[in-house]
């Protein structure tokens, strides 16, 4: 996974361009990628990339980074070039001390590479001192300040600090590499354009033999197959330079051609330490960055959610269509009474037995010549027969907890043809002393109102 893919994928994940069903369908369409999450995510990104509006935040960041890298890259190359020219500056009066150049192409790269390895080890921590002291980090900051800045859409753009660490490490290597190329070009240019007398000099008591051994050690990687690029002891002896005297030693002038031999060694040292090894570090940083990108994207909660949606079976247990409701307002008319008569022409018990009706009448001190059981287990014919016997005022006892069905409505409509007044008495359960609950009464009132007949009364 590269940086651009990471940025676009991160942005796409936040946008959620597909539903969980679509994601699962995608997962099932690509069964082979189930074990390769990055590939699966990459395919998913390709499918939905059109959902991002152009230019996306990822595009903007990437192009900003590209421009910053280009500008800073050119800048460090130029700095390297001028540094090289400065280090190899030869006036003709005194030779060029190779120790300075060697420091820049061998010792500084080795030291910074050690620091790079340390910062790589610590790169998983969001706050990494070594990363923050890297020149690339500060160059970036200065560039940000000096340039017209980031695109307004990117002001709040946040990058995972761990990815940020690797990005700084990787770009540091790239800049160091370009800087080294600047030094190499400067060396080649100076060697081609000038006849330079190289020498070495040190305040320390270093004998030519020791220095030769040291040079041999530095040249370990090319001394066997390119011995010409390793200065001989004689060259080292002849090119030792002492500042006292303020002029070039006569012996040096005699062996002027020998002094120029050093350039091959310097070039090989620069190519090996500052170019090849640094390039190796750059590749290592690139691998680290790719791993950090992979880790970062896989640890995002949106990614976990997407992978879960793609790879886990989609279990749906809810309705696949909207539930149809009957919550329609019933407009009707219903009379209510709070008192019962002492006598009725008939007392009917809807789903009550005759015995139960008798008990209810006793309790309410109601007198009636006719007690009939209707509804419940009775046949429709029995109900019709009961209705035919009713006239004048009729009391219908109902179980308040049993909501009225259309069967009851049919019965009431038939009864109103026979009786002059029908009082419906909803009763509660015996444990409640037959008193109905208010909610149950509401339900009965609503249903009776739908009959819309002024003969029907509700005892409340």
């Amino acid at each position, binding site marked *: 996974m590269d940086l651009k893919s990471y940025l676009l994928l991160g942005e796409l994940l936040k946008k959620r361009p597909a539903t969980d069903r679509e994601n*699962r369908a995608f997962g*099932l369409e690509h069964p082979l990628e189930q074990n390769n999450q990055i590939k699966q995510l990459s395919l998913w990104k390709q499918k939905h990339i059109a959902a991002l509006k152009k230019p996306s935040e990822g595009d903007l960041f990437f192009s900003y980074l590209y421009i910053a890298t280009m500008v800073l890259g050119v800048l460090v190359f130029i700095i390297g070039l001028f540094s090289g020219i400065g280090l190899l500056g030869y006036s003709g009066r005194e030779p060029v001390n190779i120790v300075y150049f060697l420091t820049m192409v061998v010792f500084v790269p080795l030291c910074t590479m050690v620091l790079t390895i340390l910062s790589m080890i610590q790169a*998983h*921590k*969001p*706050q990494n001192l070594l990363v923050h002291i890297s020149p690339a980090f500060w160059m970036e900051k200065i560039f940000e300040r000096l340039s017209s800045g980031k695109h307004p859409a990117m002001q709040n753009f946040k990058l995972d600090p761990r990815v940020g660490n690797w990005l700084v490490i990787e770009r540091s290597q790239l800049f160091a590499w370009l800087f080294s190329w600047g030094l190499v070009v400067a060396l080649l240019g100076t060697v081609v354009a000038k006849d330079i007398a190289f020498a070495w000099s040190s305040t320390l008591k270093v004998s030519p033999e020791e220095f030769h051994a040291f040079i041999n050690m530095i040249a370990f990687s090319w001394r066997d197959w390119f011995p010409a690029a390793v200065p001989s002891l004689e060259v080292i002896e002849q090119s030792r330079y002492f500042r006292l005297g303020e002029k070039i030693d006569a012996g040096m002038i005699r062996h002027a051609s020998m002094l120029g031999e050093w350039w091959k060694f310097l070039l090989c040292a620069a190519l090996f330490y500052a170019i090849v090894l640094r390039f190796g570090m750059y590749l290592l940083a690139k691998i680290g960055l790719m791993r950090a990108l992979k*880790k970062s994207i896989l*640890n995002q*909660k949106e990614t*976990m959610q997407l992978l*879960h949606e793609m790879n*886990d*079976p*989609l*279990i*749906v*247990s*809810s*309705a*696949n*269509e*909207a*539930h*149809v*409701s*009957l*919550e329609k307002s019933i407009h009707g008319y219903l009379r209510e009474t709070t008192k019962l008569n002492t006598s009725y022409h008939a007392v009917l018990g809807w*789903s009550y037995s005759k015995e139960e009706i008798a008990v209810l009448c006793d309790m309410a001190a109601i007198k009636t010549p006719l007690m009939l059981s209707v*509804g*419940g*287990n*009775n*046949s*429709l014919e029995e109900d019709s027969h009961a209705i035919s016997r009713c006239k004048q005022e009729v009391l219908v006892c109902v*179980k308040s*907890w*049993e*909501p*009225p*069905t*259309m*069967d009851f409505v*049919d019965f009431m409509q038939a009864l109103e043809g026979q009786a002059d007044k029908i009082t419906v008495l909803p009763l509660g*359960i015996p*444990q409640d002393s037959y008193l109905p609950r208010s*909610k149950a009464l509401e*339900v009965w009132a*609503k*249903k009776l109102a739908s009959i819309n007949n002024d003969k029907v009364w509700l005892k409340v």
Partner: protein
Amino acid sequence: MSVSHPKFAVVGHPNKGKSSIVSSLALDDSVEISDTPGTTVRKCSFPLMVDGRILYELYDTPGFQRARYVLEWLKQHHVSADKKQEVVQVFIDEHRKDERFRDEVELLEPIMQGAGIIYVVDGSKPYGQEYEAEMEILRRTGQPSMALINLIEKDDYVQEWKRALEQYFKMVRVFNPMSATFKKHLQLLESMAQLKEEWIAPMKISIRYFERYHEQMLQQTAQTITQLIFASLSHVEQLELKDKEAGSVEEKKLEEMYKKTLRGLEYESQKNIETIWHHGHLQKEEKGLMFEHMDLFSKQSASIFGLTQKELIVTAATGGAITGAGVDLLFAGHTLLLGGAIGAVIGGASAYFGFEKLAKIDVLGQKLGQKYLQMGPMENQNFPFILLGRALYHAQSVASMSHARRERLKLEMNEAFKNQWLDENARKSLYRYHKKFQSKAQTDTKNLEAYEKLILEILRKCIDG
């Protein structure tokens, strides 16, 4: 009659909790449930689908309205027992366009298409003869059937219902959708599987998927809680300073901003958890399932969900001692265990002195640049336990809340809850991670994963018992 997957029609008298049962079994709180009879007017299918494949299907149906008419119609057609089913089908065909029998046609249709019958009654109300017509009609369909006694209210008439229902149904079970646990839910599915031999295998698969689904929801909840704790503990609030110096007004303002952000994080997390557990209706409410009059930073919250000062000191001292013991180990005991002792003292003292304090407020910024006040990350060692306790309690309440429930549920304070999930080992482990989250630099994915695992275990204990 070929049946590709098990189907079950939930039928019964109006207003006996059919929709509640379906809602609970389907984990779907979008089902219209009302105490007004006749809320359901059309049958509605609730399939359990895995990757688009239906494993079983539940039908919510309207209640019987004219059962006696239907039964008399059926009785008028004298046929031998093997033809009774066909008569029911003829009734459906003949009355499909008859508005008077719309409800009966709607409820009988899935049954005649092979659905098993789940007949629902209210066991908190007395048995009545008016149910017999309905049961007789269902018997005539010839489909496998079971009865569910739903206890809508507190009165108990289960025994008399059982006696009546056992005459008509192969199986009678008591199931309260409002209080049924996940285990009861699965037990009911197992009972439903027994209705027909060929349904046993697919229903077993369904149960396995339900278990997997439940596990997925637990994992997502643990993940959400982990993210909440980490985000809250590591949060840093900043306030740009207009003047070069910060006064108490600015400090107070910053503290309010800090608290508001943390409250917001808790709110978002609660909403996510409600979505995970399919309680979408809570989403429609302004506040969802919130702690009434109990702010995240209130003393009440601290006393119910947090650790006592003593518990915190012991935990912090233990944590400090373990860290110090590491130093002792490094010096092979030559420190005379001073490391452990010093660690314990530092840990205990920081818990003692920082019991009330939330987080440090610093003035940051360059001398010539913009100065700003900064608060966070959270330093209080009790706060993570308060936040976690609240999150777990909320998650437990949401996870165990029936999908049939429509009224707003208040989160009541429960002082015993802490003892239910927080033992000494959990306290020590959690404390260690909280300390890491509070120092943001030390947190990596592995810590978050380990913490999530710990939370998952606690959630299992809280939700599954």
